[in-house]
């Protein structure tokens, strides 16, 4: 029996074995540090929910070469669709790429099932030497002389001490709040995603979505799909199932008194979606909060002895065109690990020493991306861009294609009438156009 001393001291304690936590533990363990990875679920991934498409295959490829050959991935995403919806119409932008990087190694993204994928990633960290402990709920951070020196696990003699604590405990980060790095969130900063996994025969999936072999598609839907709730919807193909769900801003769900599962049922019944899910059998149902405000809800990222990464740090880019979280989670986890490794080498764990975290985040293009798109979330997740304009596009197409003996209208007068019918003032329209441009163009 290998006995450890009573007051076990780790170099790094990582709280939460999601993508951020496991990546942080993996890199720190590889650097020879003594790493503890804590997970509250029965196994890593047991409590984790996302869409889930993992973009950023190339990032993980640097860490674990050809990782997709051993990991439980579903399909590589080489088709993406963005659809603008009205209650009866859908206008889609269809992207398909068979080129290198999308349909060949290292691929661009994979659909994954989180319970399997997270379990695998944590096992990689364990194989690298990290000490994984499951069914371990962290209740508090331990302080000594104004700096974080460990965490308290909800068990008898649950105090564990470490030189650096990396908090990867997800969107409603308990640790970041306990350490005074994060404020309470506002309801408009969070979205609620509800998701179903629907089982479908792989051959049917291939036929129905025009896919060959292990190709996969990711659909994103904007417009009337969530009625007057600000939000959107998604549908991704897995190997023998579909992941689909609806995302709605928490504040507007409350205001409009809408239940998320009603929106999900409406979405599945939409004429553009119903044929895609026809004949499928419900396998699982889940829900999760999404930190959609990005830059605006970012906590202070470090304090003496503590770093924050992943969703806990608000690293989820929900900006219309992009709906990415796991890649930033891994990147920020790696940046936190690099910071911890450097701090261990210097033997200095003060906030001043951990401040290089910012530099590492910049090098991994996390903070730069969030800074670049800092203007996007506030209005992309607003009513006009997520619901009204997409619906107007869908309705306009309906008008353009309609042949009913009435004189054909040219596009500009048609658009003018559309704007007149809606209650948008022209000034507002110009302002929105400017904001879209500011968010995406420069």
């Amino acid at each position, binding site marked *: 029996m290998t006995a*450890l001393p009573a007051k076990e001291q780790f170099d790094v304690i990582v709280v939460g074995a999601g993508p951020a936590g496991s990546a942080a533990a993996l890199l720190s363990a590889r650097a020879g540090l003594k790493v503890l990875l804590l997970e509250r679920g029965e196994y890593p991934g047991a409590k984790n929910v996302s869409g889930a498409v993992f973009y950023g295959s190339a990032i993980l490829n640097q860490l674990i070469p050809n990782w997709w050959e051993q990991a439980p991935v579903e399909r590589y995403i080489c088709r993406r669709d963005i659809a603008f919806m009205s209650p009866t119409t859908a206008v889609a932008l269809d992207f398909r790429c068979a080129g290198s990087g999308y349909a060949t190694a290292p691929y661009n993204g994979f659909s994954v099932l989180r319970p399997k994928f997270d379990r695998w990633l944590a096992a990689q960290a364990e194989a690298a030497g990290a000490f994984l402990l499951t069914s371990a709920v962290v209740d508090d951070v331990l302080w000594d002389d104004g700096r974080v020196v460990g965490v308290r696990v909800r*068990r008898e003699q649950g105090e564990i001490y470490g030189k650096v604590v990396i908090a990867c405990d997800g969107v409603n980060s308990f640790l970041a709040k306990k350490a005074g790095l994060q404020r309470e969130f506002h309801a408009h900063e969070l979205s609620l995603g509800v998701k179903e996994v629907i*089982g479908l025969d792989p051959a049917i999936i291939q036929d129905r979505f025009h896919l060959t072999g292990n190709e996969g598609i990711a659909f994103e839907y904007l417009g009337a799909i969530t009625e007057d709730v600000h939000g959107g919807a998604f549908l991704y193909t897995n190997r023998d199932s579909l992941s689909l769900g609806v995302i709605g801003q928490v504040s507007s769900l409350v205001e409009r008194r809408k239940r998320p599962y009603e929106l999900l049922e409406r979405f599945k019944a939409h004429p553009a979606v119903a044929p895609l899910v026809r004949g499928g059998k419900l396998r699982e149902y889940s829900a999760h909060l999404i930190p959609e405000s990005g830059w605006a809800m970012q906590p202070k990222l470090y304090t003496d002895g503590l770093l924050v990464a992943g969703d806990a740090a608000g690293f989820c880019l929900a900006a219309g065109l992009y709906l990415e979280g796991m890649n930033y989670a891994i990147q920020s986890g790696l940046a936190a690990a690099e910071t911890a490794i450097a701090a261990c080498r210097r033997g200095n764990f003060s906030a001043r020493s951990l401040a290089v975290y910012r530099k590492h985040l910049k090098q991994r293009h996390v903070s730069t991306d969030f800074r670049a798109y800092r203007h996007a979330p506030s209005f992309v997740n607003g009513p006009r861009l997520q619901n009204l304009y997409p619906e107007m596009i869908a309705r306009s197409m309906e008008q353009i294609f309609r042949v009913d003996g009435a004189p054909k209208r040219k596009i500009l007068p048609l658009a003018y009438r559309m704007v007149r019918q809606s209650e948008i003032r022209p000034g507002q329209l110009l302002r929105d156009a400017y904001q879209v441009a500011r968010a995406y163009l420069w």
Partner: protein
Amino acid sequence: MRIAVCLKYVPDPGTIEVDPLTGLIAADRLLYMLNPADESALELALRLRPPQGTVTVFNVGPVEADRLLQEALAAGADAAVRVWDSAISSTKPMITTILLAAALRAAELPDLVLCGGHSVDRGSGTVPALLAEHLGWPVVTEVTQFEMQPDELQSGRMRVQRRLARGARAESEVTLPAILGLETGLVHLRQASLPSLMRVKHTPIPLYGLEELGLSPQDLHFPAMTLHEVMPPRPRARVMFTPDCHRSAPERVAQILSAGVAGKAGQILDSGTPEQQADAIIDFLRQHGFLEKSP
């Protein structure tokens, strides 16, 4: 006093999901856990353990069950033994008990063996009795309570309470060494402290194969009962009421609408022998679908 506890590694019933596409249990979604009755047994063993006593836990199962034995060690068990061999093809109670008996002998026979009475997966409830047969020891099943005074420890006797039908209890005494089969849900296993949980994480669990136990694959060959098929219950086909086809259409419709009431005009059997009358009744019942028609 040396106590042995037999632990079974069972699928968590909460994680059993039938894959809608194949109709089979989705094996990759199953999570395994310690059988609840065995959990009670372990906790009671730990409470009973006198200062110089030991609690050893035994399991027959694949390498994944090591986690469960490690958790038992974290909770306070003194030693753990896992029995497995590539030649073991089934964990039927008969085979499990042969292996357990051999393992108990190999690890020096204890004074008391505690088993959960029923597992949540197979639930045959036969393991304590079969184990007693192999060891030639007394067995008490459906145990709800047991206690041991210090003087009883000397004399090797133990008082045991058994559950009987309709809430009755039987108080009895058993001479050690003995085997007890415990009811489910008597007590909960204590929560292991964090340091002990971390200590056992990489503790290797001794593995006994057939060779170590002095058994050969032949010893496990028990063709006494073979499971051929599991079928869902199928209700017997019932004959539907059909109106008399000799009647006119309005009468038949009336018969159907009356839901059989109109047809109950009845017939009084006042002639013939009792046998003939009985046959007439049986014929009537067959005709109206209350009895199966003879093949």
